[in-house]
């Protein structure tokens, strides 16, 4: 295996584009090294992007936030501005693994690993985040949900990598939240997860909402019907129950060692309801 540690994004793209064998991007490494260790990945080369200065920063841009691909979860948690704007995305990022894993793992890695159970992805999708993809043809921005295409698979072309995530400008009276369910209190993979992002009018009525589910399908799922149902509503008990029903109905989980189809379907609804309540409160809404 070859190890590359380029210091510019262009150099990284050149290495990836010029590689003939299996060449992987190494950001936090918390998925890649586990796969290598478990004999599930045998890359011919890795490209360590942590020495590329521009990928190591969180910067304000057009009122929103750009998070470099080499920024770890702990750094996101330590960034007051990001936390204030997108608490749901930050808490989702911080649910990935232990304190030690937080010192390494990145949301871009979480996205590109393309696990259906990735914690940060439903939160990013709910947030309407964009992934900036760098490649031999230049730069392009795509909605994050378009990056993973199935378990372990992405839409990235040869020589491409995700350079950063952009979280857009936040309207007044907006809030987001992410909840997942795991059997223990820490250290597990999500049995189901749900990200909710919403914006209120001055009376506490919901103007816009996005709901995304994780671990209940082959990839992250945007539940458009849930967003439509929430928009124009106040968050009341009947509505919350309806939200849960819609999300459970949208879920397409499998039964595996982490949960049954029946259970995950139910949990998707419970989490949607609970996440919506938190997001609503963060947006300044008051539940009656």
């Amino acid at each position, binding site marked *: 295996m070859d190890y590359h*540690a380029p210091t510019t994004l262009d150099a990284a793209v050149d290495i990836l584009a010029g590689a003939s064998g299996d060449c992987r991007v*190494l950001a936090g*490494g918390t998925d890649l*090294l586990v796969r290598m260790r478990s004999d599930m990945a045998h890359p011919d080369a890795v490209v360590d992007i942590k020495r590329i200065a521009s990928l190591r920063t969180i910067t304000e841009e057009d009122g929103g936030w750009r998070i470099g691909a080499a920024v770890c979860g702990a750094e996101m948690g330590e960034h007051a501005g990001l936390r204030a704007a997108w608490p749901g995305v930050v808490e989702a990022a911080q649910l990935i693994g*232990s304190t*030690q894993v937080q*010192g*390494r793992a990145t949301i871009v890695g979480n996205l590109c690993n393309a696990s259906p159970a990735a914690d940060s992805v439903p939160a990013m999708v709910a947030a309407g985040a964009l992934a900036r993809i760098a490649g031999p043809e230049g730069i392009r921005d795509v909605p994050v949900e378009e990056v993973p295409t199935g378990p372990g698979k992405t839409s990235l072309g040869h020589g491409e990598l995700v350079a950063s995530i952009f979280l857009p400008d936040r309207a007044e009276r907006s809030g987001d939240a992410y909840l997942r369910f795991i059997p223990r209190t820490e*250290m597990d993979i999500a049995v189901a997860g749900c990200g909710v992002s919403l914006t209120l009018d001055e009376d506490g009525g919901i103007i816009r909402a996005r709901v995304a589910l994780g671990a209940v399908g082959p990839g992250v799922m945007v539940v458009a019907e849930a967003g439509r149902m929430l928009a124009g509503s106040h968050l009341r008990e009947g509505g919350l129950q309806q939200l849960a029903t819609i999300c459970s109905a949208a879920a397409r989980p499998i039964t595996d060692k982490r949960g049954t189809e029946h259970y995950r379907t139910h949990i998707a609804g419970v989490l949607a309801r609970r996440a919506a309540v938190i997001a609503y409160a963060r947006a300044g809404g008051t539940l009656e």
Partner: protein
Amino acid sequence: MSKLHVTTTVNGEVQEFLCEAEETLLDVLRDRLGLTGSKEGCGTGDCGACSVTVDGRLICSCLMLGAEAEGREIETIEGMAEGETLHPLQRKFIDMAALQCGICTPGILVAAKSLLERNPDPTEEEARYWLAGNLCRCTGYDKIIRAVLETAADMREAS
């Protein structure tokens, strides 16, 4: 296969080593630098027995390549005591019997030190969540958490 030459700082000392690209930092510490205090309990980042800090940040050394250590500052359990003087956490772990078999102890001490550097006054819940990635099978965590919280109180008083 040609090996990579890496220069890094471990516990304040400059170290050079040759390693294969696949080798983890844990492999390098244990097998190339003779620092066997960091333990491998899982190799997948689930147990925390290999905890070290890199540029001040707590990580699992099994989840980092040795090659990535170039130019970094690494702290391991071997660097925790200053000469003959134990770190207050080390002293407290002995005094309060916060270890039984001792295999998880180096990782827990490195992680707890990192906690107290960031948060000198953690609540019990904060300490438990910070250390959730450090598995201990002997103690039920009770005496570990008590020792961390008592050390924090002692260090606050001393400062």
